[in-house]
């Protein structure tokens, strides 16, 4: 794998204003708060966390589907935080979670896939456009007759394939996969996961793979980032993160995993977290995880832990790394 950084994110912040009930007083939901990471060319970075931790928002902000509140996004060496995105839409695409909601029910599959070809003027004439559509459909395991059908005629797995074909229509280099398999049946999930892997081999794609399913993320990713309440708390190579995690939150996530193996499941010692995720409107001071952390001390409330390298390529934001180990 080339170790050239394709996407770099520095101190990304994404705040959403909400009305506080009081006139002239705005409050902000800090959905993503000061997150930095990078993705190499042809690499898969997994992003995991509970609902509301900001993983989807991070994915969307990188594509500038939301205007980031602060921070910088660099794509292939160019700062794209404030530029016109149209030329970059050809390089960065997204696959959404729900294949039932993300396809226009009134467009044929051919037109759904062809829309991007039209917008970016990638085909000289109708024949070329049609050929390209068929090529894309076959790339995702569908055939040419599917082009004239409508989304409702397809099963969930096939629809997700259409969504992927649409994202690939512009020949992108980078794909944000936002929970692409969680709406699918178990027996279909593996089909789609394998397809992502094959497409990556064939086209050298880089993925940001967002999911709450740690087993799947571990399977597909080179590196994994763990988010909690808008913050990246740990990031490491997949195996390193699975077997040598240091952040107490990552550890509890892994221990809570329901493993499809009775012997392992019976002997797993689960670390249950106390309490609930705090509201992102009023996140706790200092370390955001401290309200549920078994290791929390006064220092955690006073000071925000730095996101620092604990071993080569392994980053973690915690004051008590030595205690956890």
């Amino acid at each position, binding site marked *: 794998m080339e170790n050239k950084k394709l996407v770099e994110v520095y101190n990304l912040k994404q705040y959403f204003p909400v009305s506080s009930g009081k006139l002239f007083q705005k409050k902000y939901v800090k959905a993503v708060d000061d997150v930095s990471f990078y993705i190499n060319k042809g690499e898969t970075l997994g992003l995991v966390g*509970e*609902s509301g931790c900001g993983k989807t928002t991070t994915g969307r902000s990188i594509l500038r589907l939301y205007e980031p509140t602060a921070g910088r996004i660099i794509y292939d060496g160019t700062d794209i935080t404030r530029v016109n995105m149209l030329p970059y839409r050809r390089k960065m695409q997204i696959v959404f979670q729900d294949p039932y909601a993300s396809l226009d029910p009134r467009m044929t599959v051919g037109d759904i896939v062809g829309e991007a070809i039209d917008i970016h003027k990638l085909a000289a004439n109708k024949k070329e456009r049609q050929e390209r559509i068929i090529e894309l459909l076959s790339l995702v395991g569908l055939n040419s007759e599917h082009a004239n059908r409508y989304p409702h005629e397809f*099963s969930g*797995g*096939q629809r997700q394939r259409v969504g992927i074909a649409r994202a690939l229509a512009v020949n992108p280099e980078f794909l944000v996969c936002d929970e692409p398999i969680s709406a699918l*049946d*178990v*027996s*279909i*999930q*593996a*089909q789609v*996961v*394998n397809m992502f*892997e094959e497409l990556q081999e064939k086209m050298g794609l880089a993925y940001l793979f967002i999911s*709450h*399913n*740690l*087993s*799947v993320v*571990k*399977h597909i990713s080179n590196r994994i980032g763990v988010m909690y309440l808008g913050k990246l708390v740990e990031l490491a190579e997949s*195996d390193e993160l*699975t*077997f040598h995690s240091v952040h107490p939150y990552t550890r*509890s*996530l*892994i221990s*809570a*995993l*329901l*493993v*499809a*193996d*009775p012997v*392992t*499941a*019976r002997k*797993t010692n*689960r670390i*249950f*977290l106390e309490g*609930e995720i705090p509201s992102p409107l009023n996140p706790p001071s200092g370390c955001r995880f401290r309200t549920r952390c078994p290791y929390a001390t006064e220092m955690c409330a006073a000071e925000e832990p730095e996101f620092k390298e604990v071993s080569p390529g392994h980053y973690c934001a915690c004051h008590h790394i030595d205690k956890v180990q």
Partner: protein
Amino acid sequence: MNDNLNDNLVNINKLRLSFFTPAGEVKALNDVSLFVREGEVLGIVGESGSGKSVTAYTLMGLVPHPGRIINGEVMFNGHAVHLMKERELRKIRGNEVSIIFQDPMTSLNPLYTIGNQIMEVILLHTNKTRKEAKERARELLQLVGINEPEKRLKQYPHELSGGMRQRVMIAIALACEPKLLIADEPTTALDVTIQAQILELMMDLKKKLGMAIILITHDLGVVAGTCDRIAVMYGGKVVECGTTDEIFYNPSHEYTKGLLQSVPNIYEREHRKLVPIEGQPVDMLNPPAGCPFAPRCRSCMRICLRQMPAYTNLSDTHYSACWLLDKAKIEKESAILQTEGEAGNGE
């Protein structure tokens, strides 16, 4: 297959159930037989549309319109549920058998307090006064691990988190100490960290109260650590049934095998390519004539497409419906095919 039939808490026998939709008859359940012993945890695993929920719902007499039981019996705790009238059913629902659903937000009434909703069940099925019922509701909240029960009783569902709501659902379900608890995808809508907690709570309560549980899920991880026995359903059929270890370590049906190979295991250090089950889920409007899994099966034979295989017993607890297990039957059938073929040539 079923030892001492009458001792079982639940006996579903050759149940056929169809939905009569404008598009045609959907055979949701096709000769489903299952049993649950007292105090046992049975997992029903299958994908959407396999009939796992419908099977369990029949135990409460909940057959959604336009469905109808065509054939077979549903015996629960001495009642013939399939013959019972709505009035009689109401006496056992929430009392002898209760259910928790996937999404606790939509199954709690947003207009009533938690306390009210728990007390409703108690007042309906017991002779307790309101005061006693309230006391019992408080006890129940404590039982399911909700702190400050006094305060929670006065709260509305929207004030609680998803995990809390599911705990309340469990409290309501257990209010009358039922003999059977049906849990229909109880953890699917919850966050990963909460899922294990809810499952652990259910297993804990099972130990304390001794009820049987039917756990319906599509997630093999959910059943692995919790169930005594597992029934695997596909296309309205129970294709394989056995103890948890038999299903996971000695699967005999091709669908079960496929399912197990298609999920990644986080503890595997080497990158193993997932083996997906090819093809698409069955179209229940036009199911295949033979084994429902045949069109997607790697080892599909001619007979699989024509005729449903019978169950083969692999141990006292383990049985499976697959032609591959039934060599004698295959040989006999192929002999018939041959004679048919010869007859065909003769014409």
